């Protein structure tokens, strides 16, 4: 049984099918959220909220479409919003936010390198090299021109290579 069947089952009230869908997609959604936010608690919240949004819209979900890109669009956009908001809310007087440790399944060195990118650059790098979307798919997911995606990828990779050197 594949993803379409799980979605159909979940639409009909099967908790088992919903769990299969959740277990299939949670690791990548959580990982993407963490790599963009750099905050373990926020990543958990964002990935969880994306699944809750999926449940709210489950009845209207078109089973012919893949579930992953739809979920990742929510995850990455919310992760970018969260990271921007945190920068806005940095409390100069009272000290900065302290990020939690990365989830144990993540490569700490990769995280350390990617954390120095801006959230917008992090998002396209994560979508391209962690979730393995094409630049065209990323442009669609983030509602960006294809050229913007390419330039962010290029700049992001340049920064990562500088830091490795």
């Amino acid at each position: 049984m594949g993803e379409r069947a799980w979605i159909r089952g979940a639409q009909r009230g099967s908790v088992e099918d919903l769990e299969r869908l959740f277990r299939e997609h949670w690791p990548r959604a959580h990982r993407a959220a963490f790599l963009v936010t750099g905050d373990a608690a926020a990543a958990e919240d964002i990935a969880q909220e994306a699944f809750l949004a999926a449940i709210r819209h489950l009845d209207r979900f078109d089973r012919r479409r893949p579930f992953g890109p739809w979920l990742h669009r929510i995850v990455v956009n919310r992760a970018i919003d969260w990271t921007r908001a945190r920068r806005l809310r940095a409390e100069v007087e009272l000290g900065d936010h302290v990020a939690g440790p990365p989830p144990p399944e993540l490569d700490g060195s990769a995280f350390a390198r990617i954390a120095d990118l801006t959230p917008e650059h992090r998002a396209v790098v994560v979508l391209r090299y962690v979730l393995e979307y094409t630049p065209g798919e990323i442009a669609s997911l983030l509602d960006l021109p294809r050229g913007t995606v390419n330039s962010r990828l290029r700049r992001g990779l340049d920064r990562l290579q500088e830091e490795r050197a």
Partner: protein
Amino acid sequence: MNAEERAWEVVRRAYEERIATPRRTAPSNKLVVAGVAAAVLAGAVLSPPGRAVLGDLRESVGVEHAQPGLFSLPAPGRLLVASEAGAWVVADDGSRRRLGDWRDASWSPFGRFVVASSADELAAVEPTGKVRWSLARPQVRFPRWGGSRVDTRIAYLSGSRLHVVAGDGTGDVDQNGGPAAAQVAPAWRPGPRHVLAYVTTSGRVHVLHTDGGSLAWRSAPYPNPRALAWSSDGTRLALVTRDRVVLFAAGPRPVATRFVRGVLAAEFEPGGSRIALARARDVFLLDGSRVTRVFAGAGRFSGVAWSPDARWLLVPWRDADQWVFVRVGGAHRIRAVSNVARQFGAFPRVGAWCCGS
């Protein structure tokens, strides 16, 4: 439990709630249930120990032999109060400092600052009255400050919109365009993670992770909501409505419901699980399934506040123009202070009793 399992529990509960078919209950059954519960409550509060505590206070308006002025508080800490004449901080030696023309105010999590509001302004104020920052916003109500020592947030209502702003006054946001808020003060879960509960106009409790803008859970609708309160360890959330007190734990399903009519205010015991509930004419403690009335009188009470050491309750008694301090830790005692309105320009609402001197 790891992140995946925690998330799965939340997702599964939300899914089961979505597919659950609401069960209709005949109105007559509801009345029977409420009636039985009210009878149980009445039995508890009118038990012999309850009557002994009440003594001859029941029909009097005001406590006899009250002090003519507020010479001191019976426990360490500082009181924050607000009236039509402004907001005030009262120290435990009875000294008062007026903070300004604010009509609502609450403490920062550790009592270092006060967030105050007037009709069209939100401000962070030092206990000395000095304004640190302010924001002009329409129809500001119920400012509440939460978070850790190093990272705080303030929630407030602007009209029916829930807003959250950082403790330094930056990054003010309408909370993700979520449902409109009822006119009930939002409540921060104690702790560093910026988890906020508020009630929507449909009477649902929403619990949000405000930094990510994500919804942890939301409850079924409860009509006529009046107050929200977290326990100090953040494990219990109480919703007060016109006819009941609903207790939540980690999710949308209530762990207990007590049918009690007319509760106006609720506050958890600092460091404990008892809830002080104030109605117009009595104040009682709810401790699990046990209900104990601790004070009653004619006229109208306007709230209740625990002392930081959890040994005293402050009951503002508007019709008697008194503050009544009821000792609930150790031997039962009552202290009262008269002429409260004269001392604060008008009879004030008690915000909170906070945090040592």
